[in-house]
């Protein structure tokens, strides 16, 4: 069963088309990454999934319902706009959000304190929200999103602004939610995060979907490979750049990373590299999601210029 289904969903603000005929399917229990640059339409799509915004056209189903408002208590949401009542105490805020989501737990306070402890926010229960740092406030919002044990967790840029330690704690908690069987849809413009966490990725650009694939399929496909080359000396870089199958050459520490054009045969390219320069090491690597994204974005911006 699918947790989220979007069929040709569109949304415009004035003359600006934020989301354009978007199709999307997130199966239940999957952790899906929604990637794209700032302004791609990720937040608008998420807001439509949550019924905060109404689509101009298209159909939408969330947890089997035509609107998220019919199943709000089964959804947890961490918005990109981090907002808390400044004067409200953390415990009171979390209790308020939990009650809005239908939690009638007699041990609500104990539950909140357990979550705060897991987020390394011991002692924050009685503090005013304004007394917390931005990162801590973000963790409090994450707690608000998961306290009611939702079936679907929608996280908009959940790791942005966090220090590496806090980011790692939150990543582990997201994975734990996934292991507990929850469906997770999270957006990010940092491709590395999506690669680390996701079963499936959607990529949108200018409101249009440009990639919709599982991470396993992405890795299994030959598409998007790159070759790592370490030269003996500096000579030969220009020769590598001129190779017809090479899209671009970038420094990767002491090595060079050659992104291959779509359809290029890595074995043939390795032979061409050996002929063009004195090589110490050659290694076929998979292109990062970031490289794939950049290529897809370029293709979308300048159709026919590539591929």
């Amino acid at each position: 069963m699918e947790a989220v289904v979007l069929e040709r969903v569109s949304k415009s603000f004035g003359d600006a088309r934020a989301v354009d005929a978007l199709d999307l399917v997130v199966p239940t229990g999957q952790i899906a990454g929604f990637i794209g640059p700032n302004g791609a339409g990720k937040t608008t799509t998420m807001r439509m999934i949550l019924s905060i915004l109404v689509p101009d056209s298209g159909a939408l189903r969330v947890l089997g319902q035509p609107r998220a408002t019919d199943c709000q208590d089964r959804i947890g949401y961490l918005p990109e706009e981090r907002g808390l009542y400044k004067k409200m105490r953390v415990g009171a805020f979390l209790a308020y959000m939990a009650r809005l989501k239908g939690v009638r737990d007699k041990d609500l306070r104990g539950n909140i304190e357990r979550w705060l402890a897991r987020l390394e926010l011991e002692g924050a229960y009685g503090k005013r929200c304004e007394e917390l740092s931005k990162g801590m406030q973000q963790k409090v919002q994450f707690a608000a999103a998961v306290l009611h044990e939702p079936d679907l967790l929608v996280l908009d840029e959940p790791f942005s602004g966090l220090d590496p330690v806090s980011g790692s704690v939150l990543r582990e908690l997201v994975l734990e939610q996934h292991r507990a069987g929850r469906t997770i849809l999270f957006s990010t413009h940092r491709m590395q995060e999506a690669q680390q966490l996701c079963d499936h990725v959607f990529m949108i650009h200018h409101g249009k979907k440009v990639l919709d694939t599982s991470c396993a399929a992405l890795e299994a496909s030959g598409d998007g490979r790159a070759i790592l080359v370490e030269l003996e000396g500096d000579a030969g870089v220009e020769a590598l750049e001129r190779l017809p199958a090479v899209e671009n050459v970038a420094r990767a520490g002491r090595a060079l990373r050659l992104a291959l054009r779509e359809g290029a045969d890595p074995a043939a390219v390795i032979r061409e590299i050996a002929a063009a320069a004195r090589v110490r090491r050659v290694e076929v690597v998979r292109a990062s999601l970031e490289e794939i994204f950049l290529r897809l974005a370029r293709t979308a911006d300048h159709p026919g210029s590539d591929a």
Partner: protein
Amino acid sequence: MSVRKVLVVALRELVATVTARGFVIGVLLMPLLIAGVIAFIPRLIRMPSVSGSIALVDRSGAVAPHLVPRVRDVMADLGPISRRRSSIADPTSLRVDVLPEGVDVAVETARMVAAAPGPDARLAVAVIPETSLDDGTPFDLYTSSRLDIVLQSALAEQIAEAIVDARLERSGIDAARIRTLVKRPQSVTRTVTAAGTEEIAELTRILMPFAFMMLLWAVTFTAGQLLLTTLVEEKSQRVMEVLLSAVSPLELLTGKILGNVCVGLIVLAVYLGLGAGALSALRLPHVLSSGMALLLCAFFVVAFLFLAAIMAAVGSVVDDLRSAQSLLSPILVLMSTPLLLWLPIAREPSSTLAVVLSFVPPIGPFVTVLRLASPEPLPVWQIALSLVVGAASVVVAIWTSAKVFRVGVLLYGKPPPLRTMLSWLTR
């Protein structure tokens, strides 16, 4: 719409508002403080209680017999508050010691300072000149610092009256008779209405309706302002989106309005309680009946719901209070109309203008309350119609507000133009 979610939002709104320091100090403590000041300050500033005698040097030889009974009655003409403030708890204990004409006034006045407080203390020395019955020569009154200003002035008044009495007696005229003849009679105004004849002062007849309308107006706007403030705070603190993931815009709007209705009713109850106390002290308890209080609450709910709908719509499209105030200006001017028209409406509560304005939203509730508090009874159908029209206008206002609220609540930056907001109504 989930009633549970509406109640959770309303409860938070109520608790957050009434526990805020600004609300407790500004809305609840301030009126209680003012009432406390009015009740207790006169007691605090009252002079220490004194007793003793007034020494009289009567060089005219005719004033003393008239002054002795007057001094016992020295406080008779004072009002209750002045009487309470006086340092003489029991004026009948005051004694007049008539001294020989030839005494040394300087020595006698010095005794006022020297004497210890107590029944034998000297509180004042009055010196009536020999010619005071002939040409109005001023008399001298020396008073102790222990004698308060109220009693000083009352004593001076009684001495002057005693001199007049002596003059009249010397002329062979009956002073008591003259005083009876020149006393100006007071009027007792009775207003005759369909409900009967009511004895009420003109001032009360005009001011009471205004006081009730002002109370309704002030409480409505206080609660409306509180709603607007929390809404703008939620927007500026970016809490709105997380709330809208848990409740629908209509549930949020309804919960916030409901919470603030309760806040307004608390404020209204506080002020009505104080008003009832003040009216009771002024011996006008009949002006605020329980029926009147209930109708006031009903009209508050209607007036507030309309204003709250407007406040919510405006609050949803702005990020700060300053922008909200400029958008609200036209509606504030419109809702202030009853303040400008109170005098003609209070004087002629059954005039065509008054009747028509009772049914014009959003000012109908204010005009009706103004008319309700006037002595002339209002036909029941007019009260009912005013409530029905008000309720209908509230339904339209909330429907409109919900449309604007739904879209506007996620907008940040410059408020959209009116034309854009109107286009949201058709969505």
